[in-house]
């Protein structure tokens, strides 16, 4: 299987998915998801204390993915580590075989399960991307030479439907300038709006993978519309989910996701998709089947 870097360069449509490390040391379910997905996608993102909830580190799970023959993307947030720890984590990831990193700001600690924690945010996502670029050139953030450089493919995130969008686009451009080679977007559901974003993003030398979050119920869709910044599930989709037989809404969600992916691919709208089936990772193969 080609590496993620090769896939980004050569494949017309790249597919990544996300796995979330567990809280606690029982990794059986996680390993099951890794086995299930590793050959069906070009890379697997591993979240970093997702939603500020304490779990196994992204790096440890990235290594587990490598052990099982998959290709990981290390997600690294600025919330829990200062610049020493971030650089140390990046060097450690590289020597353990991780080749891809997604640089994020990170959710605030108050949304998670240790709201009393001291938030760090020593760097921001743009500065973290710059740091990766420096480590790739055998320098650290303070300008010191190192013994052995990294060679990461760095990525970042963007919210194509943020409101207001202009400050978000300025940051997008800064991330490109700071070395981001690929973007995985916040969930998109409105193809027309996303096309407009892509008309803009196409001007930059980066690959864009559209975020696909699996909808499992009308309630979830409404919840995201009301509570998750930058996510807008059109009413037409919410109705489709609401009309589903009891217990069957997830099948509708899989069909919606599959159809979205199919259209993005057929129309060449973007360079791939990033599937987030939060808690329903075992259904990702069904989404991929629905996308055929």
């Amino acid at each position, binding site marked *: 299987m080609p590496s993620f870097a090769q896939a980004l360069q050569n494949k017309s449509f790249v597919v990544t998915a996300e796995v979330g490390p567990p809280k606690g040391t029982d990794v059986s379910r996680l390993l099951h998801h890794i086995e299930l997905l590793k050959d069906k996608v070009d890379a697997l993102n591993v979240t970093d204390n997702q939603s500020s909830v304490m779990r196994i580190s992204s790096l440890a799970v990235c290594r587990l993915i490598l052990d099982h023959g998959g290709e990981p993307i290390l997600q690294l947030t600025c919330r829990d580590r200062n610049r020493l720890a971030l650089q140390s984590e990046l060097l450690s990831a590289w020597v353990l075989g991780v080749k891809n990193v997604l640089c994020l*700001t990170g959710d605030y600690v108050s949304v998670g399960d240790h709201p009393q924690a001291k*938030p760090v945010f020593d760097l921001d996502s743009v500065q973290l991307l710059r740091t990766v670029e420096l480590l790739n050139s055998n320098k650290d953030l303070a300008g010191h030479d190192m013994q052995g450089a990294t060679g990461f493919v760095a990525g970042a995130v963007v919210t194509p439907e943020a409101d207001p969008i202009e400050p978000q686009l300025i*940051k997008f451009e800064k991330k490109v300038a700071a070395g981001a080679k690929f973007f995985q977007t916040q969930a998109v559901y409105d193809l027309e709006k996303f096309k407009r974003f892509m008309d803009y993003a196409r001007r930059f030398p980066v690959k864009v993978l559209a975020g696909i979050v699996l909808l499992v119920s009308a309630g979830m869709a409404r919840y995201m519309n009301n509570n998750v910044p930058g996510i807008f599930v059109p009413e037409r989709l919410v109705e489709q989910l609401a009309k589903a037989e009891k217990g069957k809404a997830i099948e509708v969600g899989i069909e919606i996701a599959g159809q979205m992916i199919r259209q993005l691919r057929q129309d060449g709208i973007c360079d791939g998709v990033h599937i987030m089936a939060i808690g329903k990772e075992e259904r990702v193969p069904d989404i991929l089947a629905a996308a055929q």
Partner: protein
Amino acid sequence: MIVAERKSFEQIVDMLSPFERVLVVGCGTCVAVCMAGGEKEVELLAAELRMHAQKQGKTLLVDEVTVTRQCDKEYLEPLAKYIDQYDAVLSMACGAGVQFLAERYDDKLILPGLDTRFIGVAQAPGQWEQRCVACAECILDQTGGICPMTRCAKNLLNGPCGGTNHGKCEVDAGKDCAWTLIYRKLEKLGRLDLMRKIQPPKDYSVATKPARYVHPAFHESQQTSAAE
């Protein structure tokens, strides 16, 4: 100015419970303005403490005095005449004032009556908002006079995070997103070029605690006095 909030009556009663003779010392500057530890607040608290002790059948002497500022030595000096009469002193100053009082009277137990909140402004009557974190390296020239170190929960320097929503902050929807404010201000000024510039990581070495600052005009006199 420094904005502080008085500790709850229960907390204060609890702190003072081992003592029979207490001096409450107010501070007439910042905390008087924000109605936490000025003359009026001291008077009210002292009366409340006396009434409470009486109801509990407890012996408690509470005296009160408010000085101009507890962060200046000259205003602490007059207390020397009578401070020994008390078992404990409740300082109604910010954390700096409490400590300065404790340094001056190092054989006295000085207790804090307030929780110090932030450096801020009076946004509306009875409402104060934080505006400065004293980062020791002001960047307001780059951000249209709106401080992301203070007003962005994540002190981001290069634009908003993905949590910003309709101009509000992901941490508290009741608060403005600093970077949306900065964007709008710079747009109005025709200076969005400032926002497009990649800001390097902050230099936290300049804000190493505990900080000290000597005015240039006083460098020489301090060196002389140190040599003496």
